């Protein structure tokens, strides 16, 4: 189909593109790699020049961080607890809401669906002032409850779950269970939830990462140092205490990103799949 000059041109084009993609790949990795390498170097080594080869000072940097009260393990624990609880709540109640929207006919259903669509577009940041006052009034500052409970009403998750359920749901699925006298809630637990496993897995990843990375809300609600989440700990690295201790500072940043990078190496296929599905359906 192509003559030789065309074939040559095509080959050159392909090579150029691969080189370009390679450069973009470097752009994605290099910032993180520099941080990880610098976390293993001493402050003078870092001052001397750029390097891409790890050295042996990681342990010293780690001890310095610990000495400064930078308790990353506690940060992991706090962030994990919040993210895991919020994700569990959001998965369960979003599936339940999606199920209600698909299976039952009731008054106000259309309005609820419109409301969910609106909620997706209006981010919670616009009402942080009211949220903060409300939480302060009911005495829940310095408490994880306001970081976890709002996940029960998570509109984007309901949207995703409804889209998924629509493709797999058929009344025959539940009819026989109903004839056997199973309760509606039992049907949801034993028949519907297991069927939704792929969608639950996708939303679990996105919900968890979203909550783990949340910075603004914990920043305004939490003062207690021992309750700091990971992004709040990272914020401490910008303070004066680390102005000269570069190695320790890089160690702090590296520790904050390594769990996510590890998670991503295992789950990137599902994450990319989720973004693709979301993009087409939304």
């Amino acid at each position: 189909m192509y003559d030789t000059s065309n074939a040559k041109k095509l080959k050159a084009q392909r090579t150029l593109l691969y080189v370009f993609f390679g450069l973009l790949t470097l752009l994605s990795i290099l910032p993180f790699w520099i941080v990880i390498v610098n976390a293993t170097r001493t402050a003078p080594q870092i001052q001397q020049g750029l390097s891409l080869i790890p050295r042996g000072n990681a342990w010293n940097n780690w001890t310095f961080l610990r000495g400064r009260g930078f308790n990353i393990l506690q940060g992991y624990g706090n962030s994990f607890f919040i993210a895991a609880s919020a994700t569990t709540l959001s998965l369960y109640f979003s599936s339940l809401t999606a199920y209600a929207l698909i299976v039952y006919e009731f008054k106000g259903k259309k309005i609820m669906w419109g409301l969910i669509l609106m909620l997706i577009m209006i981010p919670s940041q616009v009402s942080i002032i009211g949220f903060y006052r409300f939480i302060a009034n009911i005495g829940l500052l310095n408490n994880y409850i306001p970081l976890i409970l709002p996940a029960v009403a998570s509109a984007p998750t309901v949207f995703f779950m409804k889209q998924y359920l629509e493709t797999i749901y058929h009344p025959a699925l539940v009819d026989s269970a109903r004839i056997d006298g199973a309760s509606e809630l039992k049907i949801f637990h034993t028949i519907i939830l297991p069927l939704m496993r792929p969608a639950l897995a996708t939303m679990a990843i996105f919900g968890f990462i979203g909550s783990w990375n949340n910075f603004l809300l914990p920043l305004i609600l939490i003062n207690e140092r021992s309750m700091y989440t990971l992004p709040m700990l990272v914020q401490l690295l910008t303070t004066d205490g680390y102005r000269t201790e570069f190695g320790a500072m890089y160690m702090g940043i590296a520790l904050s990103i390594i769990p996510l990078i590890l998670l991503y190496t295992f789950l990137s296929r599902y994450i990319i799949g989720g973004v693709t599905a979301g993009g087409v359906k939304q």
Partner: protein
Amino acid sequence: MATTTTTTTATGKQKRLAKRKNHDKWGYVFMAPFFLFFLAFNFYPMFYTIYLSFTDLAGWATEANIVGFRNFQNIYNNMLFRRAVSNTFILWVVNFIPQIVLAFLLAYWFTSRRLNLKGIGFFKSLFYLPNIITAASVAVIFSSLFSYPRGPINQFLLSGGLVDSPVDFFRSVVMTRLIVSFIQFWMWYGQTTIVLQAGILGIDENLFDAARVDGATDWQSFTKITMPLMKPITLYVLITSLIGGLQMFDIPYLLTGGGPQQSVETMITFIYKQAFQGGRNLNVAATASVVLLLMTTAFSLLVFNSFRTRSSKQIKKGVK
């Protein structure tokens, strides 16, 4: 005879309907948790914010008095807020234009049958990687990479002989803005590429085949078929990116705290600082939030309309 049959079927139907209605009440039960938590944690805070924007609540006062539209007049004349609004848009535009151009090119290359590139999944996952990393960490990474005088970027520029003396990036308005926009670009172009690629793959193959038979080149089919059909998705990407951009906080706040000369002060950094630092002007912060809410709602309505035109156009033009 005829009447009796209709009545019997009607009662049968009614019975079935009654039975279904019996189930249908579970719809309310299953929606209830979502609805109650929405009322408590979304609806109430939003209206509380709107209420506070009409009061004088500030400092350590506990009583809020209604002051009418005074806060809105004040915020209109607040130079810092105006700056925050224009900064937010500048930072967004400078990140979005290169982002959508690159994402379109990548999506085109990834889907081109003539090029038939390998390893696309691998590249996509790497381009998307920065998006999942904690924005707070990303901000601190870039603030150390660009730090003065001996940050990695300065070391690279000096050793390559590109500059004679180190550059103090975060003293320069232009540089700081470019860095913030670059970070946004870097974190989001992978996501946009994936969405656009999915959109292109959703276009009916027959359209491209027909164009090929008519002798169209790859680039011609891209500009004449793909681009017009992708208009609604592009609009969707644009507006969701804009709404996300209006909420920009972590990156500018942790990179420079809004400086130099308030050059990367955004609407949310303004709201945060007003409410939680210095004078604790909750009323000012609430008023700024309402302005932000109005802008966000206006842009969201555009998305709704684009949904509508998109679905009707898709049917007409044969998009799967």
